[in-house]
């Protein structure tokens, strides 16, 4: 069966099941007797096993099978849940996770898991119980992997058997073509020609017809009989160009037969249990009415839809010009329908933050164990929705902040008891919407940030001067721990760092158009609060004009706009500057920077239109010809061809269908 089409679904679903396993194991640790949890774990493991066996990932299947056996034994009351078991179970799930990751990275999900398998077997047997089910030995698996060929018919087997008796060698050859290979079919043809000179091809996977029609990824396998040595064959194949890798292993008939039997057994096993599962589902009546859609397709939909909006704009214009009542009504109706459609398309990209939050409990458990601390997690607002693009980016900064909170925030057990706090520290993760933003807060009830220490360190590192230090508010002091240069790799302080400073977190969040603030009370704990835009694909901009060209400047970087008389422009060391609210701000003439064609009769205006932008605490005044106005636009990339374009961060499509470039003002501030 060709399963490649199901691969993404398989990976997604596997990850979901792993998530369930992790969460339920965490729950089980707290309530070892709860049968509902045990049932849930058993179900997840069982489904995962079935799926992976169907997809041909035997290591994954056999390890889940072991896991399932343990829970089967628990369910039947043969063994009971002990706290030391949990670690082994977590380790097993970690392995499963790695295998799935390997598969999603293009591997075959194989892994040596003998140690965990042994431990699981011990668990399953408890003290005296003999194991009842026939099992697949996972420990044998690694040896089998090199042989991938399946469904070898009897005829081929006979040939292989005979050739072996006659003293020829059977090989299984896997050939991987380079990814950029243009005519795969032609390559295959050339390789076959080489092979046919050296021996005989018994079978290929995919079939010869499929290979000729290029219906394969980049790898194919052939069963090959030859009297030549492995090395000779290798060299000859490698003479063909555009080949990435050639792997030749002797083909062992006996082993192959064993493996075939095993997988058949496994398949039968599943056949019966699958049915049970569906029954359970239907009796519960919980149907998940969702479909998975590739985000690229949503992007295409969005692009097409924008085109429609552009046309809608034209229609509205036409209808107004023609002054036809019926036409106007129709166009108006269409406008309403299409704006509804637009909001639906936007919400389709939204996913609950649960996806990110869910991986934290187990991570927190792990970190807490490493550091020998007691931490409880509280998650609030996991259903809060965020744009997919934001979700993908926000995981890492959060991980960093959480580790930081456990490492430096929450005190060790004894210290907490001494301070009269509960011995379990609490880490609260909270997400909520407010206006056009999402807030994510990470709150701990730990030691808090020591103001004096931060100040002293910031001064000693030269981040701020002593004079500046006196003017700072408490919050500004806390935020110093996120400034670059505060924490360095060679010095792990007791306030920040695990080597990497929090400045990375701050940068990432700012690059997403967000903000991070810190609040803290000595011995009471700290709150890191992150504010993010709902979506990265829509931003607010100020549209400006340079002659006939239109550009957009993101509002997030604009301080304000001003109109200044030529006479107020001053010269300071070959640079034109203005006095802006008591500060000297240099001017950047966008017409010159962007080399905009000036009409011959261009008259100099007595007034300059200036957009004051900031980068950190530096400011620059961008001189433009005129302001058009503020607008929400959909951010688009310039594509893979135009990378690193100076001072341009992207583009957007305006209401009239024309493209306007988005100015990256950061590049214009020195």
């Amino acid at each position, binding site marked *: 069966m060709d399963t490649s089409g199901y691969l993404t679904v398989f990976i997604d679903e596997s990850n979901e099941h792993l998530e369930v396993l992790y969460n339920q194991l965490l729950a089980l640790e707290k309530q070892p007797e709860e049968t509902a949890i045990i049932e849930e774990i058993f179900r997840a493991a069982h489904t995962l096993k079935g799926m992976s066996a169907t997809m041909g990932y035997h290591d994954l299947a056999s390890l889940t099978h072991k896991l399932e056996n343990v829970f089967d034994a628990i369910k039947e009351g043969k063994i009971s849940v002990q706290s030391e078991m949990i670690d082994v179970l977590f380790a097993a799930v970690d392995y499963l996770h790695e295998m799935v990751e390997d598969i999603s990275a293009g591997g075959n999900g194989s892994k040596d898991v003998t140690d965990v398998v042994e431990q699981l077997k011990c668990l399953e047997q408890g003290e005296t119980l003999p194991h009842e089910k026939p099992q697949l030995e996972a420990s044998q698996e690694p040896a089998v992997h090199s042989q991938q060929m399946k469904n070898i018919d009897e005829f081929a087997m006979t040939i292989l058997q005979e050739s072996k008796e006659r003293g020829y060698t059977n090989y299984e050859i896997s050939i991987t073509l380079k990814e950029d290979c243009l005519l795969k079919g032609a390559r295959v043809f050339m390789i076959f020609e080489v092979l046919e000179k050296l021996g005989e091809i018994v079978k290929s996977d995919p079939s010869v017809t499929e290979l000729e029609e290029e219906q394969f990824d980049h790898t194919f396998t052939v069963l090959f009989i030859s009297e030549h040595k492995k090395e000779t064959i290798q060299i000859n194949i490698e003479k063909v160009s555009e080949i990435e890798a050639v792997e030749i292993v002797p083909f062992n008939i006996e082993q192959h037969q064993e493996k075939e039997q095993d997988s058949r057994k496994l398949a039968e096993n599943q056949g019966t249990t699958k049915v049970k599962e569906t029954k359970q589902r239907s009796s519960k009546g919980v149907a998940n009415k969702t479909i998975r859609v590739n985000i690229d397709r949503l992007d295409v939909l969005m692009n097409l*839809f924008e085109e429609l909006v552009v046309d809608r704009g034209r229609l509205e214009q036409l209808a107004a010009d023609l002054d036809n009542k019926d036409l106007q009504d129709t166009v108006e109706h269409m406008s309403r329908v299409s704006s509804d459609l637009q909001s639906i398309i936007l919400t389709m990209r939204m996913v609950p933050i649960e996806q990110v939050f869910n991986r934290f409990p187990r991570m927190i458990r792990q970190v807490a164990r490493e550091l020998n601390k007691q931490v409880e997690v509280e998650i609030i607002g996991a259903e809060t929705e965020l744009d997919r693009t934001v979700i993908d980016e926000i995981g890492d900064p959060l991980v960093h902040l959480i580790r930081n909170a456990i490492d430096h925030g929450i005190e060790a057990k004894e210290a907490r008891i001494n301070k009269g706090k509960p011995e379990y520290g609490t880490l609260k993760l909270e997400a909520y919407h407010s206006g056009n933003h999402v807030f994510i807060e990470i709150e701990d009830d730990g030691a808090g940030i020591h103001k004096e220490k931060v100040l002293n360190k910031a001064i000693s590192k030269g981040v701020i001067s002593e004079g500046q230090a006196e003017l700072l508010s408490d919050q500004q002091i806390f935020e110093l721990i996120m400034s670059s240069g505060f924490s360095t790799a060679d010095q792990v302080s007791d306030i920040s760092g695990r080597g990497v400073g929090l400045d990375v977190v701050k940068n990432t969040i700012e690059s997403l158009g967000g903000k991070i603030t810190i609040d803290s009370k000595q011995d009471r704990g700290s709150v890191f609060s992150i504010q993010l835009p709902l979506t990265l694909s829509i931003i607010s901009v100020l549209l400006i004009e340079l002659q006939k060209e239109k550009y957009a400047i993101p509002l997030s970087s604009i301080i304000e706009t001003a109109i200044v008389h030529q006479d107020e422009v001053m010269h300071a060391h070959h640079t034109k500057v203005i006095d802006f609210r008591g500060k000297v701000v240099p001017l950047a003439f966008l017409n010159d920077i962007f080399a905009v064609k000036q009409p011959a009769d261009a008259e100099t205006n007595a007034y300059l239109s200036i957009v004051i932008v900031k980068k950190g605490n530096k400011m620059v005044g961008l001189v433009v010809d005129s302001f058009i106005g503020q607008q929400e636009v959909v951010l688009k990339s310039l594509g893979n*061809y135009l990378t690193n374009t100076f001072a341009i961060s992207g*583009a957007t499509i305006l209401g009239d*269908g*024309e493209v306007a470039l988005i100015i990256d003002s950061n590049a214009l501030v020195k």
Partner: protein
Amino acid sequence: MENNMSGNRKVIVFQLGEEEYAVSVQQVGSIERLIPITRVPQTADFVKGVINLRGVVTPVIDLRLRFGMEETDYNDSSRIIIVFVDNMEVGLVVDAANDVIDIPESKIEPAPEVIGTVDAKYIEGVAKLEDRLLILLNMQKVLTEEEMEELKSVEG
């Protein structure tokens, strides 16, 4: 590099000045009439800017300028050929897009050392069909960065 067993190669033929060029049909997404182009400042001369191709912002290069030919005004027969190469989607402005034809592989000869004044690296070969001479382009080479850098340095 190409070794097509079928023996024929389907190409799109287009005109630049007096010469006819050909690009493999697999690399062509569509052929568009001229649409407004937004200039992108501080890019190579031959980068004309970006267009709105059905909601996708697509860069456009002027193939005449890319090949060091003289620039001409665009007219009714000018076309933008959208090509896909190495994950890049780029529009090429050409004088006219003539037709789609099959070229027998056997008619394709390697590129002569020098064709006019154009650096011949992005020319994969030439094909002589009756009285027509087609110049086959290697699109990767036409678009790759390294080549562009070279060209920039030559032009100053």
